[in-house]
């Protein structure tokens, strides 16, 4: 009888407790983060945000949800499309809310767990705080964090997903951003033909192999393997677009030495990420090669490696193009785990009528 009393007491306490906060009894399922062969340790701090299947799925849903923008039309995925390696297909500058333009070409998203600084000017110092910028920027998603919390807390499925991922019903900025990071760090692109060649599972054909040799000689000092960027900021000798007036890295460091410098972009998946350049001024790779083989303006902050231009013959450009094609990672581009979750629809493309409202 005494036992029965104890059991009833315990049950009562649990019931009372549960009426205040719904606590998940199920632990989330850990998600493995596999470092590709030969790659260094990632810089992302997984101890502070352990990867779980539930956290990843929550992040994936947030990434594709237009409700993170003020009018419901702009999800992260509007400007970061999977088939374009999570860059914006065919747009020099992305389109933001209220018929606005962004000032830079949307970068492709992959291998972010190895990246220390974000944005082309490196102004953001942690992956978890990066999404705050596009979400709140008036020319991108234009929403406030308060409104997003209201929208998510109202949604029964989100409430369930936050419990599954983090153990209780709390929905706050930190958890939203941690979930997004869990999705973003899993976007690993390491299965291109180049990678399979490096792992001894495939071999380059003649033009690809010749292109790789030219690449190592003329491009690799900035586009360093295996990430195909050294993550530095450089001025490649582009004149400033006076309609945008973007000084790049200088805006962050306030150092004139950094004027017109932008982060070296990765060349992985480069074939599916046109247009090129920080403001998308190059429509094709041919435009980019033409720029590099021209003598760039001497002086200013133009990179010393580029002042004389990079000598590139038409023949070499052909071989380089063949090599760069081996960096396309179709496994990554078609991976269903990164696609729009089932049951969700992409936010409708905003039309002129919508903007007039």
């Amino acid at each position, binding site marked *: *009888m*005494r036992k029965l*009393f104890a059991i009833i007491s315990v049950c009562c306490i649990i019931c009372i407790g549960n009426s205040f906060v719904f606590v998940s009894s199920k632990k989330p399922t850990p998600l493995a983060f596999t470092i590709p062969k030969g790659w260094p340790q990632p810089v992302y*701090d997984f101890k*502070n*945000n352990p990867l779980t299947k539930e956290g990843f799925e929550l992040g994936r849903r947030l990434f594709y949800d237009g409700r993170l923008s003020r009018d419901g039309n702009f999800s992260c995925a509007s400007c970061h499309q999977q088939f374009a390696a999570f860059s914006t297909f065919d747009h020099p500058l992305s389109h933001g809310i209220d018929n606005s333009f962004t000032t830079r070409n949307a970068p492709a998203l992959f291998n972010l767990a190895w990246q220390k600084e974000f*944005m082309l000017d490196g*102004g*953001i*110092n*942690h*992956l*978890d*705080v990066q999404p*705050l*910028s596009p979400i*709140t*920027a008036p020319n991108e998603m234009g929403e*406030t*964090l*308060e409104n997003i*919390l209201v929208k998510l807390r109202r949604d029964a499925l989100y409430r369930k997903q936050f419990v599954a991922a983090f153990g209780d019903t709390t929905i*706050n*900025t*930190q958890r939203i*951003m*941690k979930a997004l*990071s869990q999705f973003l760090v899993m976007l690993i692109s390491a299965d291109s033909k180049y990678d399979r060649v490096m792992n001894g599972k495939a071999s380059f054909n003649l033009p690809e192999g010749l292109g790789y040799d030219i690449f190592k000689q003329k491009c690799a000092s900035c586009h360093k393997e295996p990430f195909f960027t050294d993550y530095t900021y450089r001025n490649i000798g582009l004149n400033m677009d006076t309609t945008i007036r973007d000084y790049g890295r200088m*805006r*962050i460091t*306030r150092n004139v030495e950094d004027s017109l410098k932008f982060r070296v972009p990765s060349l992985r998946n480069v074939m599916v990420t046109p247009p090129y350049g920080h403001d998308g001024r190059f429509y094709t790779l041919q435009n980019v090669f033409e720029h590099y083989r021209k003598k760039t303006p001497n002086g200013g902050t133009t990179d010393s490696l580029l002042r004389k231009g990079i000598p590139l013959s038409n023949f070499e450009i052909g071989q380089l193009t063949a090599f760069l094609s081996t960096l396309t990672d179709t496994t990554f581009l078609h991976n269903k785990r990164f696609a729009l979750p089932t049951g969700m629809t992409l936010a409708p493309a905003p039309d002129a009528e919508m903007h007039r409202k």
Partner: protein
Amino acid sequence: MTILSLYHRYSSHLLKQLAAIFFLTCVLPVLTVAQKKIAILFVNKAGAETLQPGNSYMNAWGETFTVYKFKYYIHNIRFADSVGQYVTVDKAHHLVDAADASSTVIQVNGLTGKRITSIRFTLGVDSVLNTTGVQTGVLDPLKGMFWTWNTGYIYAKLEGKSNISAMPGNIFSYDVGGYKTGESALREITLPVTTDGNITIVADILKWFDSRNKITIATNAVCHEPGNLAMQLADNYRNMFHTVPVNE
């Protein structure tokens, strides 16, 4: 077995449980908290006047301005007794907001059996918290004290309008922060304490314009990033505090 007989059988057990609950919730806390609680009250002023968001004031350079927002983070509150050793009594971050009375009072433990002669605290946000992702509570970026494009907290903010400002909408806006070497806007503040009980600290916004550096709205109406101007404003707001002596 009736309910009544059940009650008789287990009533002594029930009473013991109730007594235990009473002891744990009511008696124990009183026994353990022998330390005196002290309230630190921040009173925001513009010179001699109490600061009221929406009201207008004049700085030392004759510039009239209306204040809309005045907020600042403080953390790591320490007390010293007459020996001069500082003891941390509250490490947490607090956001003092002139528009929110509940944010202006901080409860801390006093020094057991000793008289407090000095208070020290840090204005700003610990540098580690500027570089380790999204924080919660008063440090949640939705508090509007966070730069999203150039990561870092705004440590202190004074915003409003002034006809002297040539900025759009005549705004003047001082958002001060910076955690990197050479541009840290963190400032440590040490003040004397002459009272026995609660401590009242006055923060005078007029010092933002006139202390170590001369800041005029005409020349500098906007500070929206770390750097030189932020450092000058930080050197000024470092001196905006004073404690109120017992008789005032």
